[in-house]
């Protein structure tokens, strides 16, 4: 599916230009290579074993516009970041989306994660989601700051929920951004009553 507005060029804090676009079926190999090159420590915090053969093909097959929306960030054609918005297909949390982001070490702390997250937040709003969550390990200060800049706040802390590569137990912070106010504003605009009636 071709999405309007993509590819999108973004300039990072150090002036480096990156191109962000939705993932496509042909990207399986490039995506697998990106995750293979991530340090083991970074891969440990991912929910899936991204180095498993066939993972990237399966993942790309799962991508659609509404329930799994995934972006790649490229520097001269090389994948340097991957960000995905997940939305439940049914059930009581269908109004909630979850963001997962991975950025190559060379581009961490350069604003690439923020740029990717910002695109996903815009997309989440455009498909009508009311709440967006992201999971961040307590010592990922840069990621926490990036989400805070985008209006996320700490929603919950899961104590001792993850273990890092050295076996150290760490807290997992659930950060969230509530965008339901946008839809409340839209509903108010559509209320079809006169604010001056009866005056």
């Amino acid at each position, binding site marked *: 599916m071709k999405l309007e507005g993509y590819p999108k060029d973004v300039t990072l804090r150090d002036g480096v230009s990156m191109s962000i676009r939705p993932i496509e079926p042909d990207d399986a190999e490039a995506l697998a290579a990106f995750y293979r090159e991530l340090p083991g420590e970074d891969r440990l915090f991912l929910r899936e074993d991204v180095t498993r053969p066939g993972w990237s093909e399966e993942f790309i097959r799962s991508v659609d516009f*509404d329930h799994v929306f995934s972006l790649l960030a490229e520097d001269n054609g090389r994948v340097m970041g991957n960000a995905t918005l997940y939305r439940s297909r049914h059930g009581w949390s269908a109004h909630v989306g979850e963001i997962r982001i991975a950025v190559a070490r060379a581009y961490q702390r350069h604003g690439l994660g923020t740029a990717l997250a910002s695109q996903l937040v815009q997309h989440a709003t455009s498909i009508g989601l009311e709440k967006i969550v992201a999971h961040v390990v307590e010592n990922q200060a840069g990621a926490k700051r990036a989400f805070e800049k985008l209006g996320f706040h700490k929603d919950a802390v899961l104590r001792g929920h993850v273990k890092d590569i050295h076996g150290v137990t760490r807290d997992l912070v659930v950060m969230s951004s509530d965008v339901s106010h*946008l839809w409340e504003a839209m*509903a108010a*605009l*559509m*209320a*079809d*009553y006169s604010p001056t009636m009866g005056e």
Partner: protein
Amino acid sequence: MPKSEIRIGGLGGQGVILCGYIIGRAAAIYGGKHATLIQSFGPEARGSACSAQMTISDQEIGYPYVTRPDILVVMSVDAYTQFAPQLKPGGVLLYENELITVDNRLPADVHALGIPATRFAEEIGRRLVLNIVMVGFFASTTGLLEFDAVERAVRDSVPRGTEDLNLRALRRGHDYGLEVMAARA
């Protein structure tokens, strides 16, 4: 362009007035035409009958009330029942065809064009944008407004942050209208 008289009817909460406001804004601000809008509401904010009367013209408009509309846009059965007999013979009825069934109360030679606007809005992500789907359908079926003008009017009128979804709703209604018109040609 001769004067076009339009009535939009539905229930409070369906965004009937916003629908009229966007059409009027597209015509007057971005389309270089003259437009008037009169709103009427029931006493309740939601669920009561609600309608907008609009006039769009190249000339200045001296009388803004609509008695026999050229175009009727309806989003509820009650609005259809009440306003359909008032349509001018040969006029255009745009209706939500999964909520409303057209019957013999329509005047002669009316062109009735239906759209499943509620379903489209739900598929896009928010039932709330049913009215924006109708605006898109209005633009492509009546030919009174350029798509660009309506797009700009939608951008101006909806809350910041909701533009993308609203514009997708607009495009969906517009494209469906083009399909309907192509099938009739």
